[in-house]
């Protein structure tokens, strides 16, 4: 649906919309280029589109020279979306440094042609404007944005392991100042319309219906920018600060040094893109724009072909495929599937799910057996919403509405019209049976029931139900609002419809669902067990806590396995280990280290003491009493051995899970590990890591480990059978 018809009845259409962009010139000499790619939700840039765009710009240029065009507006025909940047498939398809540089240069030259038009140019930003689109609007003389929450302007390239390549690193700091541009370029975070106006990224924010008129008005102004200073800069303090910091070499050096330190801290040295982006800005700003652009193209080419970028792009595609339950699905149908949710049990998980669902617009009813946990859950929801208000993600009225979507109950009233009921009560089979049976009796005939269990199987609970086909697992991770993964557990009797409902629900509340098999620990906890157990075994053999964790963190995990155990809770871990011990059989000796610490009263972070000591907000320090209790006699193995024992243990567990059909594909497994455990995203997951290291090398290494440490390292059959990733990786996936 179009927001507004641009072409005037008296005007002339100079180019048709067949390839997704059109050019019209009205009787007043206003030219309008409109992006509107047929049969797509968003406009995207590709070499074809860019080439077409350049042709239109050249056409406008010649008409302008003839005096027939006096100004140009660039706009979008999509609702709430301007241009969603360069199609990621295009980036994924680039092979080799030369091709990458050529791709960047093509975009740069087209935008340079836009910038050099002799008439005023205006971008009318009506919605999402990211990546290449932001670079396009930066090449215009004026930018005007609709006052619409859909307007998000940013350069998210670093999140895919690359850097802006169509001039973004050069034009953004020149336009809005170094201090404001660096955070946007180095973190990839977008800004909304109001912020964009404040920092001078757009010249005006107007009510959406007035966008065309305002854009046309600006296009009638002078080509040279007047005094359209960022509102922030109107304050003298700001101007002085800017002069002190940016207009002299010492201030600039300070800014760059701070930015470099920030980048080093946030990437841990594993992600080259922000480093390259900083280099592009720093060196480019000292050059003329044209030279800066060439430098940017060279740097882009370096990162596009990097393994880190290819793995991050791969994860992007896997994530997209996971959120699309079926190839024909879109977000609209996802949100329509579950509108009324019931959560049984107002604990940490139940309360977290309720808050998130209410935030995403669902009506939620939370049941518990006492009022206190309900009040606690409401309090936590309120705190969470308050945090969102502080971050300006919602306003006070939206928060009040969202809180108002949560109702509470002590009985089973108000369940009949629920689309989905999730039980999140204590992990006790008898209690679960009772609660599920009562919920089923109170629910409607179409209601899907789900369990958020982490330690029991769906099959063991399904026996309590009259209709087990409507029952699935919906395994959220803690904390619910932060962990993006949800394991959808297909029980032996779960229907496709029930699995679909659960999957769409997860997507609708912003999660990434992965369908897994109904085995103890499902997928993530199942393969986390050998990984953590191996760390504990090494500890028992004499490795130090810090050395184990440091080696794994250097590998790229957000935290080492022992630190992770503290987060999970040692009591929980000990219980899960005991439950899963049988699964891995005699091949895997189970360490009792966690249990020993629990006996000593050390429960992990929640109790203030585990492998580390937690005091206040400071960094945790290794607990001095660990060595005597659980550390063995020997010395720490070299870091490479620590990594191999943990990671290859996880690989073997994952391969077995793949063989047993617990996870559908190596891609699903890798995405689950990245999202569920924080497995180093730049490595692309455990199978991707194995693939990059070479199947043979992996098998040889595992045989070695098996000889030294035991048969648990004997490579699973799946590891010898096939490649896990196609040569063409990364590529767009239809399904996981």
């Amino acid at each position, binding site marked *: 649906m179009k927001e507004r018809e641009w072409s005037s009845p008296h005007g002339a259409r100079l180019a048709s919309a067949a390839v997704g962009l059109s050019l019209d010139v009205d009787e007043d000499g206003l030219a309008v280029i409109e992006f509107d790619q047929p049969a797509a939700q968003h406009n995207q840039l590709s070499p074809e589109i860019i080439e077409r765009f350049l042709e239109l710009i050249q056409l406008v240029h010649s008409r302008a020279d003839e005096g027939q065009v006096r100004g140009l507006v660039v706009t979008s025909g999509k609702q709430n979306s301007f241009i969603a940047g360069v199609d990621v498939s295009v980036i994924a398809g680039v092979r080799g440094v030369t091709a990458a540089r050529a791709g960047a240069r093509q975009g740069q030259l087209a935008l340079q042609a836009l910038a050099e038009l002799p008439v005023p140019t205006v971008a009318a930003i009506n919605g999402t404007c990211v990546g290449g689109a932001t670079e396009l609007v930066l090449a215009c003389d004026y930018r005007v944005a609709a006052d619409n929450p859909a307007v998000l302007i940013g350069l998210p390239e670093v999140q895919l392991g690359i850097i802006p390549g169509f001039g973004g690193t050069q034009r953004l700091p020149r336009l809005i100042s170094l201090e404001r541009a660096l955070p946007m370029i180095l973190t990839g975070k977008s800004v909304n319309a109001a912020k964009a106006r404040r920092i001078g990224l757009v010249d005006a924010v107007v009510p959406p219906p007035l966008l065309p008129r305002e854009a046309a008005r600006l296009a009638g102004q002078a080509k040279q920018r007047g005094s359209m200073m960022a509102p922030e800069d109107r304050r003298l303090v700001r101007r002085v600060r800017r002069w002190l910091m940016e207009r002299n070499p010492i201030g600039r050096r300070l800014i760059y040094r701070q930015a470099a330190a920030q980048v080093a801290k946030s990437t841990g040295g594993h992600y080259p893109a922000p480093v390259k982006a900083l280099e592009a800005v720093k060196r480019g700003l000292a050059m003329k724009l044209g030279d800066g652009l060439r430098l940017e193209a060279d740097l882009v080419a370096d990162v596009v072909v990097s393994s880190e970028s290819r793995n991050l792009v791969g994860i992007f595609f896997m994530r997209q495929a996971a959120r699309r339950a079926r190839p024909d699905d879109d977000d609209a149908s996802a949100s329509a599937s579950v509108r009324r949710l019931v959560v049984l049990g107002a604990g940490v998980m139940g309360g977290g799910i309720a808050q998130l669902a209410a935030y995403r617009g669902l*009506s939620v*009813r939370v049941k518990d057996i006492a*009022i206190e946990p*309900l*009040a*606690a859950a*409401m*309090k936590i*929801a*309120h*705190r969470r919403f308050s945090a969102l208000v502080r971050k300006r993600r919602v306003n006070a009225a939206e928060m*009040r*509405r969202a*809180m*108002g*979507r949560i*109702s*509470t*109950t002590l009985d089973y*009233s*108000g*369940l*009949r*019209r629920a689309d989905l009921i999730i039980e999140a009560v204590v992990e006790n089979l008898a209690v679960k049976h009772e609660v599920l049976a009562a919920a089923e009796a109170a629910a409607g005939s179409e209601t899907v029931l789900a369990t958020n269990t982490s330690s029991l199987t769906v099959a063991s609970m399904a026996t309590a139900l009259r209709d087990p086909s409507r029952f699935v697992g919906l395994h959220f991770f803690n904390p619910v609002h932060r962990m993006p993964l949800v394991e959808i557990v297909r029980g032996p009797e779960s229907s496709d419809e029930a699995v679909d409902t659960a999957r769409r629900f997860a997507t609708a509340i912003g999660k990434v669902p992965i369908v897994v098999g109904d085995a103890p620990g499902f997928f993530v906890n199942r393969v986390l067990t050998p990984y953590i157990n191996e760390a504990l075994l090494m500890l028992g053999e004499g490795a130090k806590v810090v050395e184990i964790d440091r080696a794994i963190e250097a590998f790229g995990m957000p935290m080492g396995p022992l630190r992770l155990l503290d987060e999970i809770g040692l009591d929980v871990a000990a219980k899960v280990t005991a439950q899963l011990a049988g699964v891995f059989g005699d091949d895997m000796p189970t360490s009792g280290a966690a249990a020993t610490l629990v006996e000593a009263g050390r429960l992990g972070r929640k109790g203030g003491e585990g492998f580390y000591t937690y005091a206040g907000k400071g960094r945790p320090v290794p607990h001095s009493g660990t060595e005597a209790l659980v550390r063995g006699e020997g010395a720490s193995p070299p870091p490479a051995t620590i990594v191999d024992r943990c990671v290859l243990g996880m690989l073997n567990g994952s391969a077995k899970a793949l063989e047993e059909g617990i996870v559908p594909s190596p891609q699903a497994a890798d995405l689950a590990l990245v999202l569920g455990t924080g497995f180093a995203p730049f490595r692309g997951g455990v199978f991707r890591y194995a693939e990059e290291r070479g199947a043979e090398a992996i098998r040889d290494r595992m045989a070695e480990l098996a000889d030294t440490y035991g048969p648990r390292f004997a490579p699973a059959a799946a590891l010898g059978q096939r490649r896990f990733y196609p040569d063409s990786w990364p590529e767009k996936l239809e399904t996981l």
Partner: protein
Amino acid sequence: MSSDVVITHGLRTPLAKAGTALRRVSAVELGRQVVAELVARADLDPERIDEVVVGCAGNPIDAANIGRVVALRANLPRSIPAMTVQRNCGSGLEAITTAAERIRAGRAQVIVAGAVESMSNYPLLYSAAATRQFERLFRARGSVARLAALSGFRPRHFSPDIALLTGLTDPVCGLNMGETAEVLAKEFDISRDAQDAFALRSHQRAVAAEQAGAFDDERMPLFLPPTHAEVLQQDVGPRAGQSLEALGKLRPAFDRKYGTVTAGNACMVTDGAAATLVMTEQTARDLGYEPLARLAGYSWAGLSPRRMGLGPCYAVPGALAEAGRTLEEMDRVEINEAFAAQVIACQLCLRSSSFARDELGLEAPVGAIPDERLNVNGGAIALGHPVGVTGARLVITLLHEMQRNGLRRSLATMCIGGGQGGAVVLER
């Protein structure tokens, strides 16, 4: 076709003396929670609701049509129209009878009839004289003119008009509500002891009802904004330790010299909200609901504002007549306890032949209400009187009392400031 309007669900918040537990909860929020929970408990598709009618006596200035604001905040569909009704103390009852009338007129099938009152949040107002000074100030241009306007203010302009007190004073006869109760106490010679004994019984019955769980089905827990971390689960008013001795120590509040009406034998100024689902019997069947009761008859009547406490005596005969019932057939009766003196006076008048003849033009008295059928779970003296809510509260209490005890018929009636009475007969 008076028989086919039924009430299927009724729910209320806990009631709290103004200035206590609910003082920071707005009338809108009280209404939001009770309406949302009513719809949730009923498993009702909100699209089935045709209209929302909310009674409120002291409408907050930031929610001019509070019925609409409550409906929207309760996340009901925007397409459902809503209005607010005001009949002072009868506003909550008016919401239900208005709903019934719209349903009988064929204009709606399902109506949420609710009531809200936050007497804690009644505002302080500027007097008309002060308002004129402010107008002058706002219109003044230039610093000299502004200074001149400022100089017009006098200290008395800053002494606020207390909406609560003004609202409880009859603008026609000039008496406040307590003074009208004194009029009845003296006219019917109702002693201080009789009033205090009545008040004590109200507390005792309310406490016993609480212990017996009589309010469990009609009352929801209320989460206190903004954090929602605290929950009010019970009514604040009833005092287990109330005694005649304690009541006897209180000084008359409205007539220091000859008065008998005290804070102890009068109702409390209170916050609360209530909501009911009103629909045709056929619709209830279609939706799978078991009606709590039929609205068998109702009536509104007017009388001298000075004797407003006798309002029930004028309204009850009409409601009974419409229902085709006698007072004796009522298994339970709720007369709102605005003041003990006023309820006792009503009992006297209803069984008086001369009152029936002279005031109502009836040959026989309306009837006697035995104490064991009257306000069996306590009344407003113990529970409180959130002015615009009480009418709905009385109905909701009777609905659940009848259901719990398998009773057939009941009567809710109340006096109304300004000189009116309202009465409703419920049957199942």
